[in-house]
């Protein structure tokens, strides 16, 4: 289109309705230009640029046309820039300033419409300011495929609204705030909170899931007050609402802002001193093996580097590991990128529904489906596809994904590793052969995987080897958000390392356990082991932003600075390093990890030097981790667990439920996080389609709210991992009994 061609040579043609992701519409007409040999002015957004075309953007005719359109847009637009949230960030204001007429000629009455009309708990619409560019409606309806906003009425009475009583619920709805070129769609939480001239707006990357979307953080008076999407080359700048509206987590009431020793408040300096002295004493007496460090993978790369050096140099070689909410390890050699995803001939969702686990990746997939007809494949223990992302899927028994993948591969490949992985498994049936054929298609394959089922790692390696020179890539959708930072600095990220550390702690072989942002009781797949470790280890210290489960067992707590409170580097799920800047200050006594560790090291007697001279980007290629070669042998995959009667527990990761605590995002908090097939709910007597249930296995049980979801196969109950107060990692086993219970307390 002419407008894009002009942009490549640095000529800015104003647009409202046009957006490259949405395609041309031609509605607003602000982009009128004069094109030689054409009788009328043309819209630059709908006219394809051709060779030899001569376009005038500043001719008298073009300027008059544009001025006329601006004047039209203003006749029903209130002149309230001084009190408008978008004042200073508004394209109408900008263009009028740049191209508009000086004198207003319209003297008639403006149409009165809704102002500050809530279409969702997060979004207000000011219909008087709307220029009807349709970006929001088209984004929701066509791009996302969730038609929640609509154009109501006709002609000059057309407004953007929702159906009364049906608020927007899509997790992508917040993007319309960014898309709106004027101040018509407003963020309710940001409304009247700040003005463009008293804020700081810094480039950052969202901290709530491993996608790490590029964004801008707005700080005011030391607090984060807003997060917006930020387009970068190759990325549209979409955010999901879980990320967008969790920006306030740093100010959450449960945020750690003071240091504690044995439950008593102390200064950070004092706590660091005590910790340093205790560590020195323990290492002196028992050696470095008596101390271990576990990271939760949410701190920055720089912090992880400090942690690593602390373990190596100060403690003299203590073990370190990563606590992640899944049991499997990704062969890093297979780590893929979003660019590769966009070019993949085949995409497999392996146990993960990116809409839940990595929402913006869902949008990327949908765009691929729309743009180039990609047919997504899915293999899971529940239905992973959805209306907005149709494709082809295979649903297998709980715990059976690895066996299915290995059998499917072996069903169509003679490769020795494929055979080895499938050794002892039943041969692929017709349906799995079809899956195998799909996965062995020539061209590039990208697998989205949520890291459940340990045996999927060898099965994936076997698949990659069987595919030979056709690229096989894996994008891990599991958190923690910055777990690859551990990989960057050489902290082992595998399950076995952290399991060993916890076992040793539980067996009394570790005297001091240092948890850095790690919450093993909640997150570690073997929750019982983690709980035993915390109970038996004589001294557990915690540094981080929110208290972990079992906080009462801690010997000491050190509050650390969080995302946006300092500049820092994060590694996203494609292994890309991204450095965000700070826009707020850490509250209370919270301090950057590096400062705290330095203080501990000083008290220990072995200062940590030159931490700041390290460059996280050193040795990376295109800002991306350098991946190891694909090595190691494949082992046979275990057969799927035998079918048992009763319900089976399945799980997965959901950003919506496991993001940081946030008062803003709590507006739409789901209090029935578990899901079952509606018919199963009816069988349990939950005829309204939701309610509390008790899940039990052996002598363990807990209660959780459950809602109906036809995408969960019958006989299964889906409970997300990592939820506070919903300890599925302590049920031990996938056979569970489910019974409906009385509502405990009204919410």
């Amino acid at each position, binding site marked *: 289109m002419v407008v894009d061609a002009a942009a490549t040579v640095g000529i800015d043609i104003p647009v409202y309705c046009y957006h490259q992701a949405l395609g041309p519409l031609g509605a607003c007409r602000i982009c009128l230009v004069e094109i030689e040999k054409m009788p009328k002015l043309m819209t630059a957004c709908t006219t394809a640029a051709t060779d030899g075309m001569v376009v005038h953007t500043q001719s008298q005719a073009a300027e008059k046309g544009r001025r006329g359109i601006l004047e039209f847009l203003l006749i029903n637009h209130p002149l309230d820039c001084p009190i408008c949230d978008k004042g200073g960030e508004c394209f109408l204001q900008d263009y009028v300033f740049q191209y508009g007429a000086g004198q207003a000629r319209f003297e008639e009455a403006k149409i009165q419409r809704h102002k500050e009309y809530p279409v969702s708990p997060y979004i207000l619409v000011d219909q008087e300011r709307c220029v009807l560019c349709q970006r929001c409606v088209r984004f929701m*309806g066509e791009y996302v495929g969730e*038609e*929640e*906003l*609509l*154009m*109501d*009425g*006709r002609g000059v009475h057309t407004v953007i609204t*929702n*159906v009364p009583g*049906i608020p927007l619920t899509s997790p992508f709805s917040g993007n319309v705030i960014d898309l709106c070129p004027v101040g018509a769609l407003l963020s309710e939480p940001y409304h009247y909170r700040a003005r463009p001239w008293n804020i700081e707006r810094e480039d950052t990357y969202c901290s709530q899931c491993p996608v790490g979307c590029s964004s801008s953080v707005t700080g005011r008076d030391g607090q984060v007050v807003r997060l917006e999407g930020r387009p970068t080359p190759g990325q549209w700048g979409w955010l999901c609402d879980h990320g967008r509206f969790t920006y306030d987590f740093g100010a959450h009431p449960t945020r750690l802002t003071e240091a504690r020793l044995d439950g008593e408040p102390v200064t950070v300096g004092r706590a660091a001193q005590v910790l340093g002295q205790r560590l020195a004493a323990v290492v002196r007496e028992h050696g470095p093996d008596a101390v271990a460090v576990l990271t939760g993978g949410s701190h920055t790369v720089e912090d992880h580097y400090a942690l690593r050096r602390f373990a190596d140099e100060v403690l003299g070689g203590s073990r370190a590991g990563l606590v992640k909410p899944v049991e499997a390890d990704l062969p890093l050699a297979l780590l893929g990128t979003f660019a590769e995803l966009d070019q993949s001939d085949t995409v497999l969702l392996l146990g993960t529904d990116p809409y839940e686990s990595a929402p913006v990746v869902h949008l990327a997939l949908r765009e691929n489906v729309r743009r180039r007809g990609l047919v997504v494949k899915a293999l899971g223990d529940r239905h992973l596809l959805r209306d907005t992302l149709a494709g082809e899927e295979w649903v297998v028994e709980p715990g059976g994904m690895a066996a299915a993948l290995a059998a499917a591969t072996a069903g169509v490949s003679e490769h020795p590793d494929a055979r080895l992985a499938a050794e002892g498994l039943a041969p692929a049936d017709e349906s799995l052969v079809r899956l195998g054929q799909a996965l062995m298609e020539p061209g590039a394959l990208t697998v989205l995987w949520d890291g459940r089922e340990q045996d999927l790692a060898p099965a994936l390696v076997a698949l990659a080897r069987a595919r030979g020179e056709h690229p096989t890539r894996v994008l891990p959708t599991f958190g923690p958000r910055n777990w690859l930072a551990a990989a960057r600095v050489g902290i082992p990220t595998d399950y076995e390392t952290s399991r060993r550390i916890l076992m040793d702690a539980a067996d009394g072989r570790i005297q001091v356990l240092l948890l850095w942002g790690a919450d093993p009781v909640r997150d570690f797949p073997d929750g019982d082991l983690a709980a035993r470790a915390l109970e038996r280890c004589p001294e557990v210290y915690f540094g981080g932003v929110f208290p972990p489960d079992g906080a009462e067992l801690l010997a000491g707590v050190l509050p650390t600075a969080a995302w946006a409170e300092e500049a820092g580097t994060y590694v996203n799920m494609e292994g890309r390093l991204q450095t965000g800047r700070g826009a707020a200050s850490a509250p209370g006594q919270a301090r950057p990890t590096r400062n705290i560790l330095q203080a501990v090291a000083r008290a220990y007697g072995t200062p940590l030097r030159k931490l700041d001279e390290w460059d996280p980007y050193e040795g990376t290629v295109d800002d991306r981790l350098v991946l190891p070669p694909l090595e190691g042998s494949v082992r046979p995959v275990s057969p799927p667990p035998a079918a048992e009667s009763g319900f089976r527990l399945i799980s997965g990761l959901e950003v919506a439920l496991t993001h940081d605590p946030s008062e803003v995002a709590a507006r739409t908090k789901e209090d029935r996080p578990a899901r079952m097939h509606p018919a199963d709910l009816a069988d349990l007597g939950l005829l309204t389609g939701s309610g509390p249930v008790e899940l039990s296995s052996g002598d363990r049980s807990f209660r959780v709210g459950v809602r109906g979801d036809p995408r969960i196969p019958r006989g299964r109950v889906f409970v997300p991992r990592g939820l506070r107060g919903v300890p599925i990692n302590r049920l031990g086993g996938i056979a569970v009994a489910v019974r409906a219970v009385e509502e405990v307390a009204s919410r």
Partner: protein
Amino acid sequence: MTSEELGTGGAPEWNPEWASWAAAAREEFPRAQSALMPFLHRVQTDEGWLRPEALDAAAHYLELPRQYVESVVSFYSLFRTEVTGHRTIHVCMSLSCALAGSDALLHNLEEALGVRVGQTTPDGAYTLLEAECLAACDLAPACQVNLRYVGPVPPERFQTLLEEEVSTREDA
């Protein structure tokens, strides 16, 4: 939700026939969203206007977002989403009819019915609406009563529209 569930408990009812009307519309127009308008016409012919439940039903049976249905309905001036009287009187206000006195006619009707254009009489007997060119300029001032043409109706003969035996909705 099924219509049976919705038809219970004193909630505004779904007409049990809607399901078959929707099916018929889909059978006749299976492609795109074409079945929507025929279904809405059928409901409006039956009830005179489109209750919110009818829009819910359209969304449900035709498998369309409720928002989509709302958006389409609001575009077309014949689709009514407010209670509508037994007789809907449309007075054409476009140029040829205006030249023949449709303004005075409309005014007389407003006086006689005691409502403004766009409103329904409290007894639910009449709804008075203005129309754009009805393609009946030879009958200027042209009107429709329940979409049946009546004209010419000189302003002083407005009573014709209220009394003359034109077909009502039931046989429309």
